[in-house]
């Protein structure tokens, strides 16, 4: 259900670590809670991110949700797909609708985040 190669946060973000590059997105649970996504507000390339601080937000018609950085680093790339087609975030949150790629300060810190199984348990408990 939740890809095993990703690490997760309690705020419903995921990160894929490849060397010292991290790809960040929001989880399927998050997009489902939000409903139809209409807009994504993402930082510019070059922005410094700090673990736990807001990096942007996701909007549905009736709600806004902040997105928090799972790990610290510098923004390398922003997914241009989402500017024109925010609905992709509802369709493919773990894959094609990634939000940003960053150069990680400390890739090893991903181990502090939740595994797929732990995240699954966590959201099961939340309900």
């Amino acid at each position, binding site marked *: 259900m939740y890809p095993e190669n990703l690490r997760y946060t309690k705020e419903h973000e995921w990160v894929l670590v490849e060397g010292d590059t991290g790809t960040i997105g929001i989880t399927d649970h998050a997009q489902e809670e939000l409903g*139809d996504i*209409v*807009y994504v507000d993402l930082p510019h390339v070059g922005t410094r991110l700090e673990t736990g601080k807001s990096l942007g937000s996701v909007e*549905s018609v*009736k709600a806004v949700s902040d997105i928090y950085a799972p790990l610290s680093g510098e923004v390398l790339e922003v997914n241009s797909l989402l500017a024109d087609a925010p609905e992709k975030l509802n369709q493919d949150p773990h894959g094609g609708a990634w939000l940003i790629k960053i150069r990680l300060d400390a890739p090893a810190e991903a181990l502090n985040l939740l595994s797929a199984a732990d995240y699954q348990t966590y959201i099961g408990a939340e309900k």
Partner: protein
Amino acid sequence: MSARKLERKANSHLSPNELLLFERSSPGKKAYQLPELDVPAVDAGEALGAASVRAEISGFPEVSEVEAIRHFTRLSTWNYAIDYGMYPLGSCTMKYNPRINELVARLEGLAWAHPYQPEALAQGCMEVMEHLEAALAEITGMDAVTLQPSAGAQGELTGILLVRALLESRGNPRQKILIPDSAHGTNPATAAIAGYAVENIRSSETGVLDVSALERIVDQDVAALMVTNPNTLGVFEENIIQAAEILHAKGAMLYMDGANMNALVGVARPGDFGVDVLHLNLHKTFSTPHGGGGPGAGPVAVKKHLEPFLPAPRLVRSGGRLHFDYRREQAIGRVRAFYGNFGVLVRALAYILAHGGPGLRNATLDAVMNAVYIRKKLEPYFDLPYPSPNMHEVVFSDDRQAKLGVRTGDLAKRLIDYGFHPYTVSFPLIVHGALMIEPTETESKDEIDLFVEAMISIAREVESDPQLVKSAPHSTRIGRVDEVAAARKPVLKWTPE
């Protein structure tokens, strides 16, 4: 022999279609006629410089007078309105908008008064303002009133700025404003604009202010608590006096959002239960028309200690005449040009004159009775999360219906098929799936019974045919609008193809 009763409130009827003005336009059509000039015409290019003169207003409408009146008349038939029937919108106080208000607001001497005309020629207008200030002070139990703020949200800002100014004069404006989690969104938005940090305070299990929590968090950093009373659940804050004492002991202020004054007028006065400053919504409690979204007015009433900070100018009577006093050293700055939404003030005063003291009190009694009646009738069908006595409004939750997959928003849409405007959906946020209902004193038992029957019928439909409710409304000319598409690819004006 019983009188005839309406079986159903609404039926379907003929509904005209209509294009946009720009789609109706045709070059050369006109709806105006200006008189001949009695002075020589002037060449625009010469007078203004050729580069400053525009060619033409591309795309602007060109329709005849009859097309104009038909256009707007047809559009108007697509609207629900108080003149059609009840709006059970909680916290909006959608009461009848007396037409006498419209007449007096249009009297030439008032409607054409220029704010800068000499005071000798403005005494009539100033007297209207003086009279309204006095009436509102009496109704709220406060010492002074400013009529300047344009709407409730601006009244809130003015009120918080007054608090800041007072605290600053005492040496420390402080950092935080406490706001209950049940508050209207304008409250935290206002606090932020006034430069304060917002700290949320959770309501107790009975839905009211948790005074022990308040006692714990009020410190020298807290400037004020913003409270609505009765709160957004329609419940009177029974600990309000105690809350005021806690705040005052630490030098903090109690701000009251007056949106729910319709439950208090003539029965209880904020000034008597410890409020330092409050705003009123004339377009709610005092019957001025909503007009599709405004105008309103948000006068602010204060206790003596805040009076010096009220924005200039203040109305002062001396030598038998009224003056605008601009010499106010401690005043906070203006929150708008001129004196306030005078046209709205006229309407509110007309309402107060029409009702008088006893009438205003009776209106409050009726408003509360109507809401309690609705509560009793609907309690068997809808979940009531907070069982405390309610005042002018009642808040249910959609828990029971949600188990069958139907949410408050769906129930609201189905209510439209019964000929009513929906109640307030999903507010306050502390109730899951809220249905917030406020009938006001305007509604007769007949109208309320129709509403109650409609709600009960919908509750039954949820059990027998939930899909009918979820896909409502069915009888309107427009079905549910795709708000997602509207937000994803905003089209905010007409453009020629």
